[in-house]
């Protein structure tokens, strides 16, 4: 429950503060969100399997976001930004789906 509360606190803070994101950062926001989602689902699955570790969770969260942003940035510099970000999104999406399927198996046995 506590992490969920923390999540809601973060959402409320974000809605209240309404920070303006600098323009150069805006293209990386979608990728960051998807990478964060991947880390979250990985953490959820680990928690359900009983081997959750907060340090690993934080590191995977941060490194996912940073690596995804780096790949998109590199792609933009090389001129293949669209394709690389598509690749990143596809892989992260696959991982999310796998994790969700495992969570579903653990929760519902189906």
């Amino acid at each position, binding site marked *: 429950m506590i992490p969920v509360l923390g999540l809601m606190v*973060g*959402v409320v803070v*974000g809605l209240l503060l309404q920070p303006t994101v600098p323009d150069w950062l805006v293209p990386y926001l979608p990728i960051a969100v998807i990478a964060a989602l991947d880390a979250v689902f990985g953490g959820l699955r680990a928690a359900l399997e009983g081997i*959750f*570790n907060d340090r690993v*969770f934080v590191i995977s969260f941060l490194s996912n976001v940073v690596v995804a942003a780096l790949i998109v940035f590199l792609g933009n510099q090389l001129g293949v930004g669209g394709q690389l970000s598509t690749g990143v999104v596809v892989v992260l999406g696959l*991982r999310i789906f796998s*994790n969700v399927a495992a969570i579903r198996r653990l929760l519902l046995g189906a």
Partner: protein
Amino acid sequence: MRPLRSQDGSPRGDPAASMALLQEVLDRPLDPGYESSAHARQTRGLSPSTGSRTPLLLATAVLLGFLLAVAAQTLRTPDPAAAQARSELIERVRGSQHLVEEQAARIEGLHANLVALEDAGVQEDDGGHAEQVRAAGLHAGATAMVGPGVVVTLDDAPPPPASVDGVVVEDVERVLAGDLQVLVNGLWANGAEAVAINEQRLTSTSAIRFAGEAIVVDFRGLTRPYTVRAIGPVEDLEAELGSGATGRYLQDLRDQYGIITEVTPQDQITVPAATRLTTREAQVVPDSTIPSGQEDDR
């Protein structure tokens, strides 16, 4: 190549090594860090999971929520600005259309005044000129006319049923200016005395042209459907539109392109007066009581 851990007990031989990347992505998405740190904790005697109450987790959750909220807000804000600009444009378009309607009404009124003044001016001369001017006006299209005739309606072909993935098919067969020209020429040649398209009276100098995507008659664009009203001998016109050259042309349009054509004879057709008759020649009458000359070369 990193050796694969066989998860179902069956050994994976070398032949599957090339699939390592796909399997890495699909079969073991859980970060191996969790398992190794769980092992490490177990060897130290702690429970494998750190639980859900650590402050680090709380901080991460707050950060995550913050990221989600910021991303959602940032990636959504462009919309209201565009929607507002769009609604503003719509307002302006409506206002301008209203203005256009007002001006058109004013033009009608002024035109009626003009006609009245011209008639009055002609009456001042001897009666012969009055008849000439009236007859000329009739033939030129300066007066509205009522009489029996034929109404022909042309419309673009109906769009084909929505094709693959709901992609709108762009190439609908449209009515072209040439079609209208052929039709109107056929009507004139077979005795029509007055012809109007979509309430636009055709005079002897009217042009039916194609500009961009719209058919333009006398520099005014028309929208589909195109209703051609012709006052004249009903039987002749009907015969021409049924079995004459124009009729065959219309039939071709129907058969080959799917253009919708409809011919209806009517007893009472009203055709408006032309609005673009211009005065080309004018002479000041020596008698200064009449304001402007009446020698119109229409």
